[in-house]
């Protein structure tokens, strides 16, 4: 489990497609492989958001927990999906709980490291921001469609 | 017996004899009569029941009867009701069923069929309207067996218009003032200082057979010329005009026209236009039962696309705004009807203009939409 396989994964992943080699190398340098057992939490709401996950295998439930009720699963990123953008925006805190539903293998990228580099190299910052915005837009549309409650009679 | 297409001339006594002959043959004769200040179809037993010497003044949202200075029997245009109510009754029982231990049994013929009807005084626009509804209800097929039976039995004595109304535009729609084919007999009233006669054209063998009992003389060239003049005169008296060229494409392309907001500010969605219109066919189907739940009935009654519940689906309605409902009515009448049935839904009778309480004029709305489109 070295940098080499990470590098290949990133180069082939749609999120990073179009980035130049030096950028890919840098990002790969911020990453490491991680594994979670079913039921294990990747992060909790309120914790410092300092990581971005790229799911290689398995499914993660993004949940809201409130006292007196069952957790509500609002999203369930799986293979190929990207989890976590709060490392980019203050106050840099996770907004939801992330719990592995099955055995999860993922790449964890160091968010602080990435963020500092983006501040320093605005060009890379813009490239990453474009990609983040695109995913956020799609998820916003999904959330809005579900908010429209289209299955009601 | 006079052949198809031939013309004869009868006098007032002859017209009375025609009514008698029709009644003798088992028809209810339905003709224009004055009821509650309007000229509407009702059963008559004699030509004395016709509105002799009356005419109507029609404008957008206005209808008044006025005395003529002659005794014409057909010297008026159309009123608020039409022959539609005889062929497609406003409310009728479709079937009745009784529940038993094994399910339910339909009661045979719960309502006896009325005697066949003879329509006396059908205008060109009205005959066209009947033929428009024929296409809707499928006279040839089995779409509505009740309509088919009533329609095939109905005897049509048409009348060529001499006195069109202020809201008429049959010329624009190609439905008058001369009646088109489809009548059993067609009359043109020839009223002069010296004589009160009717030029009668034979349309069918059934018409010829009834006419055989009526004293008549052959129509000469003078009679035919006089009849022609009546129609030509009417052609020049149209109260309205509707430009129909490209109207389907115009309306299909005008779903977002600002004109709809403009008319919606005036329209009450009262549905008068759909009730008065001789081609509107939308109807509701209502299932009822008695208190015990043993006897159930299915009734059909006129409905209107202007009603808020017309497009109810689940908890909501598709066309909730007045804007959308007016747009539906006009677009259906003048455009989508063509794709559905092969003709326009409008025959230019002007009833919707006359009977709109706020005087909305279909011809003016189309003009305004065209203007907006071309702007």
């Amino acid at each position: 489990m070295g940098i080499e396989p990470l590098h290949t994964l990133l180069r082939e992943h749609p999120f990073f497609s179009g980035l130049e080699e030096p950028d890919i190398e840098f990002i790969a340098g911020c990453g490491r492989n991680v594994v979670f057992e079913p039921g294990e939490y990747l992060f909790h709401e309120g914790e410092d958001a300092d990581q971005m996950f790229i799911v290689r295998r398995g499914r993660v439930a993004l949940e809201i927990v409130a006292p007196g009720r069952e957790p509500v699963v609002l999203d369930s990123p799986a293979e190929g999906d990207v989890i976590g953008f709060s490392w980019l925006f203050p106050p840099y805190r996770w907004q939801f709980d992330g719990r592995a539903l099955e055995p999860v293998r993922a790449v964890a990228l160091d968010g602080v490291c990435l963020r500092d580099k983006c501040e320093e190299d605005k060009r890379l910052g813009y490239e990453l921001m474009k990609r983040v915005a695109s995913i956020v837009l799609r998820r916003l549309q999904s959330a809005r469609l579900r908010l429209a409650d289209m299955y009601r009679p | 017996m006079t052949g198809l297409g031939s013309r004869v001339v009868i006098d007032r006594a002859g017209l009375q004899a025609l009514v008698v002959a029709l009644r003798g043959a088992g028809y209810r004769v339905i003709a224009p009569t004055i009821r509650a200040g309007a000229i509407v179809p009702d059963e008559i037993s004699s030509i004395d029941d016709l509105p002799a010497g009356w005419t109507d003044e029609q404008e957008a949202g206005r209808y008044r009867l006025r005395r003529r200075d002659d005794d014409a029997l057909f010297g008026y245009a159309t009123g608020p009701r039409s022959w539609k109510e005889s062929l497609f009754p406003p409310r009728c029982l479709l079937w009745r069923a009784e529940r038993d231990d094994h399910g339910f049994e339909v009661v045979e013929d719960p309502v006896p069929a009325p005697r066949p009807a003879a329509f006396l005084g059908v205008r060109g626009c009205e005959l066209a309207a009947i033929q428009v509804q024929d296409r809707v209800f499928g006279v040839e097929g089995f779409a509505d067996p009740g309509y088919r039976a009533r329609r095939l039995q109905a005897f049509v004595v048409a009348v060529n218009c001499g006195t069109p109304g202020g809201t008429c535009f049959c010329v624009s729609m190609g439905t008058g003032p001369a009646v088109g084919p489809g009548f059993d007999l067609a009359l043109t009233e020839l009223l002069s200082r010296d004589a009160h006669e009717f030029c009668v054209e034979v349309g069918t063998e059934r018409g010829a057979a009834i006419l055989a009992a009526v004293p008549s003389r052959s129509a000469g060239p003078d009679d035919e010329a006089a009849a022609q003049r009546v129609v030509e005169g009417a052609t020049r008296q149209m109260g309205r005009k509707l430009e129909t060229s490209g109207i389907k494409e115009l309306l299909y392309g005008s779903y977002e026209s600002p004109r709809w907001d403009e008319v919606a500010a005036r329209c009450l969605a009262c549905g008068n236009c759909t009730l008065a219109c001789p081609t509107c066919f939308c109807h509701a189907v209502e299932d009822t039962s008695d208190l015990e739940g043993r006897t159930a009935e299915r009734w059909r009654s006129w409905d209107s696309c202007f009603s808020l519940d017309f497009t109810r689906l689940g908890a909501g309605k598709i066309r909730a705004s007045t804007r959308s409902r007016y747009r539906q009515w006009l677009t259906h009448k003048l455009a989508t009807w063509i794709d559905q049935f092969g003709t326009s839904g409008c025959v230019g009778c002007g009833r919707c203009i006359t009977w709109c309480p706020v005087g909305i004029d279909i011809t003016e709305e189309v003009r305004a939409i065209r203007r907006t489109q071309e702007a």
Partner: protein
Amino acid sequence: MTFPIETAGAPLPEPMLPRQYRVRSRRRETHDVVTLALEPLHGPGPRCRPGQFNMLYAFGIGEVPISVSGNPTGRGPVLHTIRAVGLASRALCDSRPETVVGVRGPFGTDWAVESASGRDLVIVAGGIGLAPLRPAIHEVLAHRERYGRVSVLIGARGPAELLYPAEIQRWRSRFDLDVRVTVDAADGSWHGPVGVVTELIPRASFDPKSALALVCGPEIMIHFAARSLLDHGFDPNNVRVSLERNMKCGIGLCGHCQLGPEFVCRDGPVFTYARVGRLLATREV
């Protein structure tokens, strides 16, 4: 333009008169959805095609249009999956076995599944929209070798609102079907995708140039699913949708179900998106 009403090739003398059917069995699907198995009291019933509907009559109460959700060709009782929304549908949902109900039909256009022969199929079902698609799925499975890659994408409000869960499981266990199920929101016991059903489309395998899509569900969902399919390269003529409107007669006469020039009961309920897309996108048509 006239049209004779026909079922099973024979003209119906009284198209507004229901035939009597007995409720053979009743199964509760969700808190407000029931599937009834109906068989005719007298003689064999007419053959329905997947996508068609019947007008179901609760004696003395009313009639509603319900798509056939199983056994369309009449080998066994015909199934209808009904959601209790109004008086008539509620009465039908409450019907116990042996109750006699009225049936008129079948009416409307069908999915024409056989036209997908040799092509990939993408079936997108939202909520109760799975019911009219179920006979189409059965038809595909009955002749699986005729079709290319077949994807069945199912969405519902939550796990408790999923129709036919046991059957979905059986479909998922097949290797010749790609079945994906998502819910809008779930509790922790749901281990599948969470999201709107349109998000499943990019995950399906199909050749957009030749594939056929069948879409059914709430109209908002149809609208967004069709858009997504078009964005993925589908020709609107190859996207078929099933629509719903207020229906009183079911035979194109009462006028209630009109969508522009279309009578949904007669020219639909199955339409190509090419034919109705623009109308669906216009507000309050």
